[in-house]
């Protein structure tokens, strides 16, 4: 099997599994227990926090562990909204966020918050001028993702952070597709809150975290015990936390060279597709993108049919995000970029990773060409 869907999830790195095993087998004590057996689990959790903080360029107490990127997004949005409700009720986000942010904003809207969803340009980048104009004295939170999961397009989080800071507005960014993958430490992005996840960087599913800059107003969403500095109640998933830290450190160590390698492979893939398949377009190509991702539209064919065609040849790619598979609606990200529903429906996402080699990319290009030609011969449009 050739796996080219690393933005959906990644395999567990063998070294991560090995780091986790002691806490699944013998070190199962509760980190909050008063005896030494519990203390050892506490030590493992705090060591993990320190290791991630070092990679993230922040203080250990600025890292809170969660169960996934979605929970981190929920904690950031709901946590700030709850804490700052007396100050204002306006939230600014974009039309291209992950469902974890979009659906949470919808839920907050139902609770009386006002949400502005900023459009993006044809390359998928949010317009800073429009963002600035959307801000008002009642704006309490801005949430703009670092890189889009479907297109890989990178948003100008640094510039947005400057606008937010000038006005004392909290900034959250979903960095699930960049944390540990891009060389830039998440603590240096300029955002007050940064979501990240373990399973996108060869860590375990069910692991995630949120960077919370010191003094950021935040109320917990999961209430209960005082774990995680009072920001997230519940007994810590020690093995997952240890795995997340191991995965993060391993990813950060190789982020620079791996980014360069993946960029080369991605460019090879795009060049191969564009030269062998007519009427194919790379979405977001003119924008800055994370190096492992490409999103391609094929005229007159349906993306899901392309995905199944490749699946039958042993190659895993996807349409849009894994989360929206099952929805008949075309990608909200691509339609926000101005693609027609038909163009959006004819799009696939290919995301490369550690196991990807040149021959995998070449095999994918050949399989795509075969599949698209066949589907076009069936197509009524």
């Amino acid at each position, binding site marked *: *099997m*050739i*796996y080219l869907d690393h933005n959906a999830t990644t*395999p567990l790195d063998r070294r991560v599994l090995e780091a986790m095993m002691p806490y699944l087998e013998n070190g199962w004590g509760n980190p909050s227990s008063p005896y030494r057996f519990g203390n050892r689990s506490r030590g493992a959790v705090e060591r993990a926090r320190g290791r991630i903080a070092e990679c993230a360029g922040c203080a250990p107490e600025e890292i809170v562990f969660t169960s996934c990127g979605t929970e981190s997004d929920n904690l950031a949005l709901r946590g700030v909204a709850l804490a700052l409700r007396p100050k204002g009720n306006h939230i600014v986000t974009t039309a291209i966020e992950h469902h974890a942010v979009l659906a949470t904003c919808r839920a907050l809207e139902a609770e009386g918050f006002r949400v502005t969803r900023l459009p993006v340009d044809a390359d998928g980048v949010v317009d800073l001028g429009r963002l600035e104009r959307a801000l008002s004295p009642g704006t309490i939170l801005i949430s703009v993702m670092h890189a889009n999961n479907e297109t890989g397009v990178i948003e100008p989080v640094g510039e947005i952070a400057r606008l937010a800071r000038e006005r004392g507005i909290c900034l959250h960014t979903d960095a699930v597709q960049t944390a540990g993958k891009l060389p830039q430490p998440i603590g240096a992005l300029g955002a007050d809150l940064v979501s990240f996840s373990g399973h996108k960087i060869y860590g375990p599913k069910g692991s995630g975290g949120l960077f919370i800059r010191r003094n950021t107003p935040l109320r917990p969403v999961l209430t209960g015990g005082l774990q995680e500095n009072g920001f997230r109640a519940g007994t810590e998933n020690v093995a997952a936390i240890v795995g997340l830290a191991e995965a993060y450190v391993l990813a950060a160590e190789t982020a620079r060279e791996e980014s360069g390698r993946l960029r080369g492979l991605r460019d090879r893939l795009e060049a191969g597709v564009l030269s062998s398949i007519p009427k194919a377009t790379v979405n977001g190509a003119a924008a800055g993108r994370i190096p492992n991702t490409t999103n391609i539209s094929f005229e*007159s*064919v*349906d993306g*899901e*049919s392309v995905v*199944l065609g490749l699946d*039958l040849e042993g190659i895993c790619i996807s349409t849009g995000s894994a989360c929206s598979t*099952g929805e*008949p609606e*075309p990608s909200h990200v691509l339609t926000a970029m101005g693609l027609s*529903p*038909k163009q959006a*429906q004819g799009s696939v996402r290919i995301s490369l990773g550690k*196991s990807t080699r040149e021959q*995998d990319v070449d095999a994918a290009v050949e399989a795509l060409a075969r599949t698209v030609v066949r589907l076009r*011969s*069936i*197509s*009524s*449009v």
Partner: protein
Amino acid sequence: MVTPPDEETAGQAQYSGPVLFYNDTVIDHFTNPRNVGELPEDETDGYGLVGDPACGDQMKLWVSIRFGRIEKIAFKSYGCPGAIATSSMLTDLAKGKTVAEAGRITDDDVVEALGGIPERKKHCSLLGVLALKAALEDWARRRGAGEGAPA
């Protein structure tokens, strides 16, 4: 290259709930759709073009009718695997049937003939049924206008 888990533990083995994935019959009709193509103008007695507003899928269907039976049928479909497979199966079911019999084919018949399709794809099966209905209505219209073949 990545090594996936055993086939035994993957997919729908040992699961008896609602259909989640495309079965082998659906995949066969997706990979080798039956009756794909167009009928030439002089062989076409009825033509139907329908789109599914729910997902943007589209199907064109041609029928050639001799002595009240669908002698030839051809289709082209734009859409997901569910749309292609149900289109293909629909043409298989309709071929050789009398106009009256073909008119009674339902979307459930198509799904049943395929051995089931995922719940979220059930609406796809309507595409073929509607295209066939449109083609048969076109045939009736042409016949009424005295342009059709004798039935």
